[in-house]
C-alpha cells in the first residue's frame, strides 16, 4: 500500500504496464523528456527508454492513426492526448477506424489501444482546456469509455483498459489529479470496466456522478446527511458499458435520482442515464429525475467558471426538489 494521488496512480499503472508487457507503448506530445504537461509520464522514458515512451510531433490525428496501426499489428499503444479539447483532430480516426475495425473485419483485425485524455474544468484553465465532451465518445460505437474519480480506481481501471481487447477512451478529471490521496495497492491489479462503485449507501435519494463530479456529490451527500437525509452516491466509473444494474437497483430503492455531470446539458451523458432509469425504474420513482449539468454554453474562462460548473449548491437544490415531490 502506498498513499497516492490520482496522478501518481496513473503513473504507477503506466509504469507497471510498461514493465510487464513488452507490447505496451506510451505515446503523445511531450510525454517523454518532460513527462507530459501534467507530469503523468514523469520518469517513464528514463526507465523504459525512448522506444517505449515516445515523444510525438504535434498531430493528434497522426498520433491516434499511427497508434491504430501499431495496435492492429499487435502492439498495445497508450496514447496521451494533451487535453480533451485537442482530441477533436483525432476524432475522425477514432470514429472512422479505431471503433470500427473489429466490426468491419468481423474480428479479423482489432485495435486494442487506450486513448487517455485529461478532461474537465475547475482549474481556471485557458480556452479549450476544460472540455467535457465525453458524450461524443460514449455515442461512438466500438469504444469503451472510462472515467475514474479515485486514485485506486484510476490505477485499476487504467490497467484494465490497457489489457482490454478493445479500444478504451480513458478520461482523467484534471481537477482531481492532485486533489485526493488514498491508499493504493502496490503492484498489479485491475478494476473491471463496466461496474459502477457505490460511493456510499443510503435510502432517500440517489446521486449519480462520475469523474470530477463525484467529489461534489459526496459533499452534497454530507450536507444532506446532517439534515437527516440518507443519500446513496453512485460513481459510474464506466460510461460504456454502463452498469445499469447498480443504477436501477439504487433508484428502485430510493425512488429519487439526481444525475450530475459537468458536460453540457443537451444530449449530455446524463440524458442517457435518465432514459435508462425511466425505461427500467419509472414505477419506482417518487419524483422526476433531476439533472445537474453544465450549460449549453462554451465552457467559460476563469472569471465566470463558477456560473457553469454544477457544484454542491446546485446538487443540493436538485436533491431537495426530488424530496419535495
Amino acid at each position, binding site marked *: 500500500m502506498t498513499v497516492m494521488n490520482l496522478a501518481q496512480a496513473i503513473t504507477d499503472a503506466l509504469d507497471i504496464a510498461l514493465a510487464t508487457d513488452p507490447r505496451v*507503448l506510451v505515446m503523445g506530445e511531450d510525454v517523454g523528456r518532460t513527462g507530459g504537461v501534467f507530469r503523468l509520464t514523469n520518469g517513464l522514458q528514463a526507465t523504459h527508454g525512448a*522506444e517505449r515512451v515516445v515523444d*510525438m*510531433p504535434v*498531430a493528434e*490525428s*497522426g498520433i491516434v*492513426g*499511427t*497508434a*491504430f*496501426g*501499431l*495496435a*492492429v*499489428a*499487435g*502492439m498495445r*499503444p497508450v496514447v496521451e492526448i494533451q487535453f480533451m479539447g485537442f482530441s477533436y*483532430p483525432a476524432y*475522425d*480516426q477514432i470514429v*472512422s*477506424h479505431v471503433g470500427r*475495425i*473489429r*466490426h*468491419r*473485419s*468481423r*474480428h*479479423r*483485425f*482489432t485495435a486494442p489501444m487506450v486513448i487517455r485524455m485529461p478532461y474537465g474544468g475547475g482549474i481556471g484553465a485557458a480556452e479549450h482546456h476544460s472540455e467535457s465532451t465525453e458524450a461524443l465518445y460514449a455515442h461512438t*460505437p*466500438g469504444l*469503451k469509455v472510462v472515467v475514474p474519480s479515485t486514485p485506486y480506481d484510476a490505477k485499476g481501471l487504467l490497467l484494465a483498459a490497457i489489457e482490454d*481487447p*478493445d479500444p478504451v477512451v480513458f478520461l482523467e478529471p484534471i481537477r482531481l489529479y492532485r486533489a485526493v490521496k488514498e491508499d493504493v495497492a502496490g503492484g498489479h491489479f485491475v478494476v473491471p470496466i*463496466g461496474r459502477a462503485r457505490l460511493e456510499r449507501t443510503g435510502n432517500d435519494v440517489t446521486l449519480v456522478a462520475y469523474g470530477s463530479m463525484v467529489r461534489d456529490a459526496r459533499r452534497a451527500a454530507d450536507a444532506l446527511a446532517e439534515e437527516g437525509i440518507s443519500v446513496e452516491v453512485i460513481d459510474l466509473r464506466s460510461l*460504456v*458499458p*454502463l452498469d*445499469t*444494474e447498480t443504477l436501477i437497483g439504487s433508484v428502485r430503492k430510493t425512488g429519487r435520482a439526481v444525475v450530475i455531470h459537468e458536460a453540457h446539458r443537451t444530449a449530455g451523458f446524463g440524458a442517457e442515464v435518465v432514459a435508462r432509469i425511466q425505461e427500467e425504474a419509472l414505477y419506482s420513482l417518487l419524483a422526476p429525475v433531476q439533472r445537474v449539468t453544465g450549460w449549453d454554453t462554451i465552457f467559460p474562462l476563469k472569471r465566470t467558471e463558477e456560473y457553469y460548473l454544477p457544484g454542491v449548491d446546485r446538487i443540493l437544490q436538485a436533491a431537495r426538489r426530488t424530496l419535495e415531490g
Partner: protein
Amino acid sequence: MLQILTPDGELLADPPMDIDLTKRLFLAMVAARQYDRKATSIQKQGRLATYAPFEGQEAAQIGSAAALRPDDWMVPTYRDAAAMWMQGYPWTHLLLTRMGDERGGSPPEGVAVLPPSITVGAHMLHAVGLAWAARLQGSDRIAITYFGDGATSEGDFHEAMNFAGVFRTGTVFICQNNQYAISLARHQQTASETIAEKAAGYGVPGVLVDGNDLFAMYQATSEAVVRARDGRGATLIEALTYRLGPHTTSDDPTRYRDAAEVETWRAKDPLDRIRKYLAAESAWDEEWEARAATGAHDEIDRAVEEAEALTPLAPEEIFESMFAEMTPELAEQQQRLLASRRDQA
C-alpha cells in the same frame, strides 16, 4: 519520370524482370481487368452496390504489389482491388463488401491486407503504425499504402508522411495520380508541379513514375521496399496514371472531362504496352491471352456465385462483432431486435 517501357512497347532500359514474371504479371493484369468489368456489369444488374472501377490503373497496382513479400502489410482504398488480390485477398471477399456484407472485410487468416479504407486519407497513417510495429517486433515486414491524388490534400497525408519521415518507418506510399478526385482535376488539387516532390518536405524520397508502365512500377516499388526493409525509411511513389472509367458506377465523367482526353490515355493502356513487348519477344499470342482471360473470367464467376450464395448475417450477428465480449447494452439491444422481428412475424 521513371519509364522503362514506352506506350509503343519500346524498352528504354533493361526490364527489371524476366519474361516468365512479365508473362505472369501480364496475366494478372488481364485477370484484374476481367474482375473490373465483371464487377461493373453485375453492378448494373443491381447485384453489387456502387463499384469503383480501376481500369487503366492495373500496372500501377499490380506492378507495385508484385514487389511485396506475402506477409507485408497492405493498407488500400476502395479502388485497389487489383493490388489487394495480388496480396492474397480473395475475389469473393472483394465482392462481398460490394454486396453489402461485412464478411468481405475479413480475409482469410494470414492475409495482411486491411479492409479497404472508404475515408479518403485517414488510412495512410495506419501503414505508418503497422511498419513501426514491425520494427519493434524485430520483423522486417514493411507496409504499403495506396491512395489517390485527391487524398494528398487531406491533412492525414501530411501527418502520415511527416511521421514516416520522423520515425523512419518502413512505409511505401503509392499515390495513384489518376488525374481526378471524382470531378476535381489534378491541377485544382494542388499547386505543386508533381505530387512526388511533396516528399522533400518530409525528408523522404519521392519518385515520379509512369504508372501505366508495369516495369517502372515494379522497379520503383522494389527499390522502395528494399529501402523500407533495410530500415532506411519510407518512400513516396507518384504513379502517373489515368482512370479510364467513371469514379464509381454512379458517376458520369462526361460532366467534367472530354472524350478526346480519355482517348489519349487509352492509347497508353498499361496492358497494351506489355502485350506489344511480349509479342516482340515472341512470348505472346492471342489464343494464350484469350485462354487466360476465359480462365480468369470463370474463376471470377465462381467467386460471384460463392459470394451470392452466402447466407446473409442473421439479425443477432450484427451485434456480435462490436467487442471481443458483447456489452450488456448490445446484448439488450440484440434481444430487442429479435423480439421486434418475432412480433412482426
